[in-house]
């Protein structure tokens, strides 16, 4: 063994530094989760800080913010799942029906682009579009006589979830459709020919051939989406929220950031983060078990 290692020392030298790197940047933070069970004292350091068991978790469950944070997290991710998940599938189905190549290319080129922009730029666009003094949305709605005077959309709590979902859709719908387009192009063309002979229309072919054929891909992405149900979003919310809409915009991830990093309550915030991670694993397992029944599970 030792001789073998020595003989391929140059090969081992290719992987060992990277493995040490992974140990530091991935495994050390895993160990760092113990902070959630301690009362971290900055002067004593992590190891010397006293153990407190599940106190941090109990504190979170009893906290005032628990209910609003959980409600926002679940509501926002549920909306994202219900609207944001089927939208790219719908787009892929529609693109697949287009018979003019140049039109298809233009729509694809434009709709993929937002995926490559940072959330900062995207939030800048949202602010520009929704601005109360020069925003195009207000201009358009005023022209259509739907509103009498400009509305400051981002400061009205009732609209926040809608703005968030629409922004996510704007950024992600095109790129999300690529996988489904690829799946659709893998469908056996003989099936469509047979359907043509039987006199099936376009919609009929979509529902009877295309959708059933891409179901395995859809189901895998659905499982992953359910596993992510407690990740209601982070960058988008952080960039679009303000104090006025805090009550409807704070989700688990932004709460961890605000409490942990900004208020330096490391132990408590780590406990909230771990709470989220554990429930996510449970959700993923649950969704996978459901999918296994239909034969399309991840593992």
């Amino acid at each position: 063994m030792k001789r073998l290692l020595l003989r391929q020392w140059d090969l081992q030298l290719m992987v060992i530094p990277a493995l040490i790197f992974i140990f530091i940047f991935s495994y050390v933070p895993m160990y760092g989760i113990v902070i959630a069970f301690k009362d971290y004292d900055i002067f004593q350091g992590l190891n010397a800080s006293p153990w407190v068991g599940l106190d941090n978790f109990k504190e979170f469950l009893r906290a005032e913010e628990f209910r609003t944070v959980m409600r926002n997290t679940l509501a926002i991710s549920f909306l994202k799942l219900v609207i944001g998940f089927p939208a790219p599938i719908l787009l892929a189905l529609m693109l697949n029906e287009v018979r003019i190549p140049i039109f298809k290319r233009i729509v694809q080129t434009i709709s993929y682009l937002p995926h490559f922009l940072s959330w900062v730029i995207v939030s800048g666009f949202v602010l520009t579009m929704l601005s109360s003094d020069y925003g195009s949305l207000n201009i358009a709605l005023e022209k259509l006589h739907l509103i009498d005077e400009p509305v400051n959309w981002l400061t009205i709590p009732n609209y926040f979830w809608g703005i968030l979902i629409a922004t996510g859709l704007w950024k992600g719908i095109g790129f999300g459709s690529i996988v489904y387009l690829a799946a659709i192009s893998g469908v056996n063309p003989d099936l469509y020919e047979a359907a043509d002979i039987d006199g099936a229309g376009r919609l009929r072919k979509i529902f009877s051939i295309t959708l059933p054929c891409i179901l395995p891909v859809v189901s895998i992405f659905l499982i992953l989406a359910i596993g992510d149900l407690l990740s209601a979003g982070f960058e988008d919310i952080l960039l679009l929220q303000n104090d006025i809409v805090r009550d409807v915009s704070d989700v688990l991830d932004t709460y961890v950031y605000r409490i942990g990093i900004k208020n330096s309550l490391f132990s408590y915030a780590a406990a909230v983060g771990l709470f989220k991670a554990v429930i996510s694993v449970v959700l993923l397992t649950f969704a996978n078990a459901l999918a296994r029944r239909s034969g399309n599970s991840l593992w």
Partner: protein
Amino acid sequence: MKISYGDRLTSGIIYALLALLAFVTFYPFWNSAVISFNTGADTSLGGITFWPRAFTLDNYEIVFQDKRLVHAFLISVLRTVIGTVLSIAATAVFAYGMSKKELVGRKYYMIFCIIPLYFDGGLIPSYMLIRSLGLMNSFWVMVIPGLISIWNMIVFRTFFQQLPHNLEESAKIDGCGYWQTLFRIVLPLSGPVVATLALFSAVGHWNDWFTATLYISDTKLLPIQTLLQQILSSNIMSEQMMQTSAAAQSHIASARSVTTKSLTMATMMVATIPIILVYPFVQKYFVKGVMVGSLKE
């Protein structure tokens, strides 16, 4: 072939919806660009949509004269170039080693790599790690933690394993070691994979604003995205302030040709342009990239 009335109606609706989607996606770019070429004073009067009403280059002139912005732009370029080159090089070497069947411990190494894909420590432990490594307020915090990407390693490794073996065999007979073979034979054959992963990594670096928000407080080290975020959020505050005394404020604003808003738009455009420039290349490779990504899942 005969096309039924129902089919034609379906097509019509589909084309209309897709055209609408393209318009809605494109419009914010266009409108923001138009505002960046319009005088701030005129913009604050409202009503700017498709074309500038009072064309000017003042906004850009001021942005390019702003040392802070130019500096942030350079930091972004620097971190993107250094971060991408180092990360691709380190990950390729790692992946090449992992692709060799004779590597002792290969199976265990692979498990060691896959576990972090399922569990990670989360924000707080990572933050504490960076702090204890002394990377706070350092340029390298934007480069080092992302040096090895396990996903990219898997993509590289899959590609290396598919390469024909006889070339490497003959290199070995000629006395090339693993390192020489990788850099002389294998990497020159890996153009498309390197390009795809490098482009994705570069876009990620350029767009990342949160790392600097978390770990960097020294304004001299902020990348353009983070600086832009700070400008945008201070704009929100000033917008809120303006509502309290709208009349007085707009009077002052109309007296100047450049406003914070028109400047913000120009800054936003400057931060977006590099992405637009590489986008044609990204588009050429990224469909492949996504497919590789879905294979590895």
